């Protein structure tokens, strides 16, 4: 069976070509067949059937009524446990619903399960999860590939056609990079477009919710559903949310695309430079002006990110102390011993590494040299983009420096792992919207992604450029 789009499925439901029950049973069947890929941390058929029952009794019209959606297990959900892929939240059952998932529920969507991720979203391969690796559905037999990360479970769920869309979060590339690895569409909107309320915090000045889908049209429908102002997130933006889908326009004639020279990095595989060139050629044919731009501080984005994100994480993750929720160690002769053992046993290696480095760069005597310095470089990186966007309407780059790599390949050297985010981190630091769409394959027939970046809150331009490239590629 070929993958059905969200847009088509909504039509089929409306014309009663298929019922909500039939539709979801089809997805349930595939989820059970693909259990070996370890895509879900939490899946309960009973829970899905209950949601179907409830929707069948509900006569009101809803925009996403009956649509199967997978939820990254970083979003708090009342109906399912929430673990952040960490032992420290193994038994956590939220008593509240995140803003984003509440919006999806209000529109009538069905949650098929909670997807795997890197522990607390810290990683680029979904291999730091306490619940084991997720396997990229595009892997050949006996050659398991990583799905990317941190939202690897959500990207894999869409790629394996286990849902019509999935939520993700992106701090430094955690939506765009796995989308590229799994051959699906992934959008990280502008910082502040979707409320962070009810999402387990990693690095609060960077974290942003977004969407995975089969195609750009579906992403435009779903993003509109989860965006919006929320008083409970002090960085939530009070902006009008346009109807991205209705406004989709693939006519780019007269627009200007920026091509940043700093994204040509030594060691990038030929095939990736090639798809980048192909995308530029396609745009040129569509009447888009090509503008070579410079983002001079690009090479400092990764080290800046790996100071700021761990610093914020070390503070955010202080809340996991074995008192209020989650795991508590048995070895608790004193309060301090309880904290230290709980956190030693509850957190995995990468999370501890980032808490330690974050604590160091914030500690007395080092704050100015590391954290403050990084915040200043971050300003320069953001200014680079502001200047560039005076000359162009959107920017096009590759999404990731490689196609999906074998599972466990890059585990030992943290810096090598961090380099996965080289093309995605700068836009995260600047808070810009970015989408990754599949665009071409490498020599092993694995998908490669093109990234489109836009101005703050100009998701419409990002979608327009994406849909235009997508339609030319199909």
């Amino acid at each position, binding site marked *: 069976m070929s993958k059905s789009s969200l847009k088509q499925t909504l039509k089929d439901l409306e014309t009663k070509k298929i019922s909500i029950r039939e539709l979801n049973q089809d997805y349930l069947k595939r989820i059970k067949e693909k259990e070996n890929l370890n895509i879900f941390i939490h899946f309960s058929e009973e829970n899905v059937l209950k949601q179907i029952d409830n929707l069948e009794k509900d006569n009101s019209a809803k925009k996403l009524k009956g649509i199967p959606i997978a939820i990254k297990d970083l979003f708090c959900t009342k109906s399912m446990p929430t673990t952040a892929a960490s032992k420290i939240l193994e038994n*956590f*059952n939220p*008593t*509240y619903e995140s803003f984003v998932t509440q919006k999806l529920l209000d529109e009538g969507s069905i949650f098929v399960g909670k997807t795997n991720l890197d522990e607390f979203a810290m990683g680029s391969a979904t291999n730091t999860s306490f619940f084991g690796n997720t396997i990229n559905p595009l892997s050949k037999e006996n050659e398991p590939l990583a799905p990317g990360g941190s939202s690897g479970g959500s990207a894999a769920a869409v790629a394996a056609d286990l849902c019509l869309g999935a939520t993700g979060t992106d701090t430094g590339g955690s939506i765009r990079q796995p989308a590229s690895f799994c051959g699906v569409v992934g959008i990280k909107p502008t*910082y*502040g477009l979707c409320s962070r309320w009810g999402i387990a915090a990693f690095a609060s*000045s960077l974290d942003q919710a977004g969407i995975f889908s089969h195609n750009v049209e579906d992403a435009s429908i779903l993003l509109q559903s989860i965006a919006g*102002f929320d*008083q409970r997130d*002090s*960085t939530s*933006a*009070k*902006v009008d949310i346009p109807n991205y889908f209705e406004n989709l326009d693939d006519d780019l004639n007269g627009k200007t695309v920026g091509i940043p020279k700093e994204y040509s990095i030594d060691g990038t595989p030929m095939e990736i430079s090639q798809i980048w060139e192909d995308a530029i050629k396609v745009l040129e044919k569509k009447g888009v002006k090509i503008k070579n731009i410079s983002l001079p501080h690009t*090479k*400092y984005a990764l*080290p*800046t990110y*790996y100071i700021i994100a761990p610093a914020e994480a070390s503070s955010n993750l202080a809340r996991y*102390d074995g*008192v*209020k*929720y*989650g795991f*508590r160690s048995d070895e*608790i*002769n004193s*309060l*301090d*011993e*309880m*904290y*230290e*053992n709980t*956190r*030693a046993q509850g*957190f995995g290696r990468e999370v*501890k*590494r980032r*808490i*330690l*480095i974050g*604590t*160091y760069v914030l*500690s007395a005597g080092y704050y100015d040299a590391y954290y*403050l*310095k*990084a*915040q*200043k*470089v*971050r*300003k*320069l990186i*953001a200014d680079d983009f502001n200047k560039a966007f005076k000359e162009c309407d959107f920017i096009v780059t590759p999404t990731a420096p490689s196609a999906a790599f074998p599972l466990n390949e890059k585990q030992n050297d*943290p*810096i090598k792992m961090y380099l996965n985010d080289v093309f995605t981190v700068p836009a995260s630091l600047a*808070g810009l919207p970015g989408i990754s769409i599949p665009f071409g394959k490498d020599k092993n027939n694995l998908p490669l992604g093109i990234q489109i970046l836009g101005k*703050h*809150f100009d998701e419409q331009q990002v979608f327009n450029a994406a849909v235009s490239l997508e339609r030319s590629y199909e």
Partner: protein
Amino acid sequence: MKIDKNTINKIARLSRIKLDDKESEDYIKDLNSILDWVEQLNEVNTENVEPLSNISSSILPKREDVSKDTNSSEEILENAPDKLEGFFAVPKVVE
């Protein structure tokens, strides 16, 4: 080397994470290589540059100053590993 045995112990203590000797060794290595790598930021002239802490380009709206009862203590305590008479329970702190 920026991080030695004493420093890692101090950071681990500040982070309230107990490390065994093997882990300490590993983290000394990891943290030193990460800190060497981020050192390249010193090449950047940041004189007179304002640090960027909030990227949000929108202005924070004000809200009505009204109280709201959003959570009951029962709900808050629901996930507590140990609780007693409406409170979180922890090991004895004062003798």
